């Protein structure tokens, strides 16, 4: 590989890696952004229906 080839490869790889790393860092440092941002569990539509049915049967 020529010197130019090394330069192109390293610039491309380092730039894409740095951009990805920066984005992830920005997302991760946002308070409550990385985990459980909405803070509640979700049910599938079928589970919701079943729960409603169970409650009405009680």
């Amino acid at each position, binding site marked *: *590989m*020529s010197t*130019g*080839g*090394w330069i*192109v*490869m390293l610039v*491309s*790889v380092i730039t*894409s*890696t740095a*951009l*990805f790393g*920066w*984005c*992830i860092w*920005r*997302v*991760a440092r*946002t308070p409550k*952004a*990385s*985990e*459980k*941002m*909405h803070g509640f569990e*979700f*049910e*599938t*539509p*079928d589970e*919701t*229906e079943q729960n*409603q049915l169970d409650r009405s049967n009680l």
Partner: protein
Amino acid sequence: MGKFIQENWNSRMGAILAVAGSAVGLGNFLRFPGQVAQYGGGAFMLAYVISFLLIGLPICWAEWTMGRYGGRRGFFSCVGIMHAVTKHPMGKYLGVLGIVIPVIIYMYYVVIEAWCLGYSFNFLMGNAQFSTAAEAEAFFVGFTGLAGDGSAMGFGASQVGFFLLFCFILNFVLIYRGVSKGIEFFCKFAMPALIVLAVIVLIRVLTLGTPDASQPQNSIINGLGFMWNPNKVVVDEFALSPDGLPGELIGTTEVLGRSFVEEARARAELDPALQVREITIGEQLKRPGLWLAAAGQIFFSLSVGFGIILTYASYLRKEDDVVLSGLAATSANQFCEVALGGIDHHSRRRSLPGRGQRCRWHLCPWVYGFTHGVLTDWPGAPFSVFFSSFLLFLAAVTSSLSMLQPGIAFLESALRINRKQSVAILGFITAVGCMFVVYFSGQGLKALDTLDFWVGTFMIYILATIQIVVFSWVFGIRKGLQEAAYGAQFSIPALYGWIMKFITPVFLLTIFFFWLTENIFRYNPLTGQRVEGPGALDQLIGANANIVAQLSVLLIILFAVFVTIIVNSSSYYKTLSHTEED
């Protein structure tokens, strides 16, 4: 009728990983390296970066913004989002493509996903130990059904049936579990695992040295040079006229490695039939074909124009950041493509024996890309090859999952049905399409190839153009940028307003024009010459019509009509919002 509820992502990181997972697919690890190598490393990368900034990023931001806007009004599919954004009765019909594209692509993508899983299994179990290209080819032909229609439908380890069934069930189980518990849950594990596997394979490939000592020019370093060198050194071979002067050009070969270049120059001095020349990066950048290829790679790689990002973004909340999330997802895709796929796959393919055996088939890039580099008589195989194909499998699953969600969201909202019903309907439709693709595997995977051409290429150009035009001209660029800025850690630069309104649509339409003329009308306007071989239309009408190609197009039309009928009859799109938003 079942009850339908709105879903949301459980975390912002999960949403980003899901969108990145949708974009990171086989094209990152197979198509991109081939494109860089074909069009000359440094020159291609320059065009690639410019295309990313002018096409990829603008459309991504537009899709994220419109998706969140539609989701806040109770619309979770491309049909509803286009309806909400355009605020016009006809707007919803623009979104039909956003359902047709991902569902039809799923029908053949899951087959390729099953190949990846099947290859992983067979490499791991030692069933696929290839020492010659002919052995690797024979396995591929048997496994994929290239031997003849219906030949792939068995359930043995060397046939795709069992692996296809497994992939199909896996996808629908995860989709049934929902956006948060299914897609997000899987992507949170699969994406980091995919990156770890890619790094393992990368390390092994970079330490291969010269796998075949009898061919020292085929080293990993020269493989990297083949891909990344900005200037190319080639040897032209000419037929000699009777008086000993160079005549017609017979062939051109690229030479890599300083010692081999010097050796070629020495041979050329002695042999008048040989001529060594250097192609500079400036000369390469003057080729319009290179710019088209770079723009096309960005376009396909980021999964823009599929309608998937719209659906995923519709599950965001009002205060969720779409600007940083969009940039993060696209940068994850670029990282996997450039830093991992760019170094690994082609340098290995270049350095291993038997490379380039199947390019003559002219199938979609995924298919012939997949057949490269599967010889297993090099050090570290078969585990490295197992990791490599399992990596492709994970990448394929995260993408195929994303192709189902728009269809599920559409059926649930338009028909007001619950998850079981929507999964059953979509499962039946995709199973029929999938069986069609698997059965008609002869004639060079004709069904897969035709669907990929008309849906995986033609339609996504159209939908991407519709999306950026709707965002910039119908929704309004000022309103669009204001909408994007809500909840964002940083705003989209003002310059992008101008780029999104003028540059991106013109760039897209230019690419589409050249693509149409070359692939449909078999004419290259750049050279003014007719392109050899039958065009896509020749396979549908006329003396060279092919029944499998015709059936494939009929399948697309039938599904598009099915979706349009639902859109037309659903009362869900009679109102512009199903929430308290305007």
